[in-house]
């Protein structure tokens, strides 16, 4: 499983995302640009220039037609994937920390930062997909300020009108985005900031990672914690493997904190855990700094990790990965 190194970012990666077909990988970074790469050979297909600050977050629609990004320049931008053109820019009083498309590609949810007297806000925009995509409404279709701890991650769920959110306090919640009502929450889902959130294909469950060194699988309807994966390092990202019963976890101690804790060589590893048995099954080394973001190919053919070191590594699984059944032939439902 020799990785392909994607070199092109000058600073640390913040989020990476495969498109639905898995042939493209989008990456965004503190260097203010978004790149798109061919996953089979690591060749760079293009760059999206325009943001004037750290690009915190990116998502692509199911047709790979539109891409959406959020950045520290207080803008949310809609892009034409194929031409690299910025189609529309929304401006806010604070940075955009997280974006996500809805299943039908017709809506986008975004979180803006709590700062300078502004509360954390969650907005849902209707995306006008007709024509070139340059005619968008300036105002959100829905907007609310989540009460209590600020939201750090969010995504649409399988239930209409409901989004799942992770918070700075470690809380996870379900919000009705039309009314702003917190439908349900689990205050003790994590003991520290929720750093990542990735949905299962049918959105009926999701995985979250946290600085509390654990990742958890939640039922997105009941908010029951189904599984817990406890590691020895703060986690920045957690992903669900496709067609295999694994979860992939990444993180690592920040360089500034290394001296205050026990150091261990090669701890910037992607950890594979069995998602049902909650046992670690393997690690993949490579990055020279904390792993900030992990994504899995939608068909499970490869995975990619983006690091604080500025590199993206794409790992194509080899035959042995697909053949191995380390726990026998137990059938595990997706």
């Amino acid at each position, binding site marked *: 499983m020799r990785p392909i190194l994607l070199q092109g970012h000058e600073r640390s990666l913040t989020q990476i995302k495969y498109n639905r077909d898995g042939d493209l990988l989008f990456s965004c970074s503190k260097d203010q640009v978004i790149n798109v790469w061919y996953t089979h050979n690591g060749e760079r297909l293009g760059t999206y220039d325009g943001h004037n600050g750290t690009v915190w977050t990116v998502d692509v629609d199911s047709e790979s037609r539109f891409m959406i990004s959020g950045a520290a320049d207080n803008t949310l931008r809609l892009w034409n994937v194929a031409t690299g053109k910025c189609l529309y820019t929304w401006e806010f009083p604070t940075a955009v920390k997280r974006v996500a498309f809805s*299943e*039908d590609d*017709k809506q986008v949810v975004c979180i803006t930062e709590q700062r300078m007297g502004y509360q954390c806000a969650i907005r849902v925009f209707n995306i006008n997909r007709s024509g070139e995509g340059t005619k968008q409404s300036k105002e959100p279709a829905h907007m609310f300020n989540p009460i209590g701890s600020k939201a750090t991650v969010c995504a649409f769920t*399988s*239930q*209409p009108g409901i989004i799942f959110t992770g918070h700075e306090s470690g809380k996870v919640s379900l919000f009705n985005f039309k009314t702003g009502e917190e439908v349900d929450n689990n205050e003790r889902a994590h003991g520290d900031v929720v750093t990542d959130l990735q949905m299962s294909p*049918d959105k*009926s*469950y999701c995985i979250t990672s946290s600085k509390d060194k654990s990742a958890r699988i939640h*039922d997105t*309807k009941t908010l029951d914690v*189904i599984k817990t994966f406890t590691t020895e390092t703060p986690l920045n990202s957690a992903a669900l493997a496709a067609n295999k019963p694994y979860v992939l976890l990444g993180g690592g101690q920040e360089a500034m904190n290394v001296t205050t804790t026990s150091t261990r060589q090669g701890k910037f590893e992607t950890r594979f855990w069995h998602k*049902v*048995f909650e046992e670690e099954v393997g690690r993949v080394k490579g990055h020279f700094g904390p792993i900030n973001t992990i994504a899995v190919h939608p068909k499970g053919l490869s995975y990619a990790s983006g690091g604080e070191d500025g590199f993206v590594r794409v790992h194509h699984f080899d035959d042995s990965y697909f053949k191995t059944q380390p*726990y026998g032939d*137990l*059938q*595990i*439902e*997706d």
Partner: protein
Amino acid sequence: EDQRETETVNTELLAHRRRLVDEWNAWRARSKKELAEEGYDHTKEAQSEEEKEEIE
């Protein structure tokens, strides 16, 4: 005797894992059934929204 002990541990572990898999599969089956019963179809909702727009 040692071997017998190892075997017992293995049998217990296997039984434990089988139980975890059964629980997981039962939960997945429940979730999928609920999703199907709610009949929430994303493509359907998209269509009805389009129709509404046309009426307007």
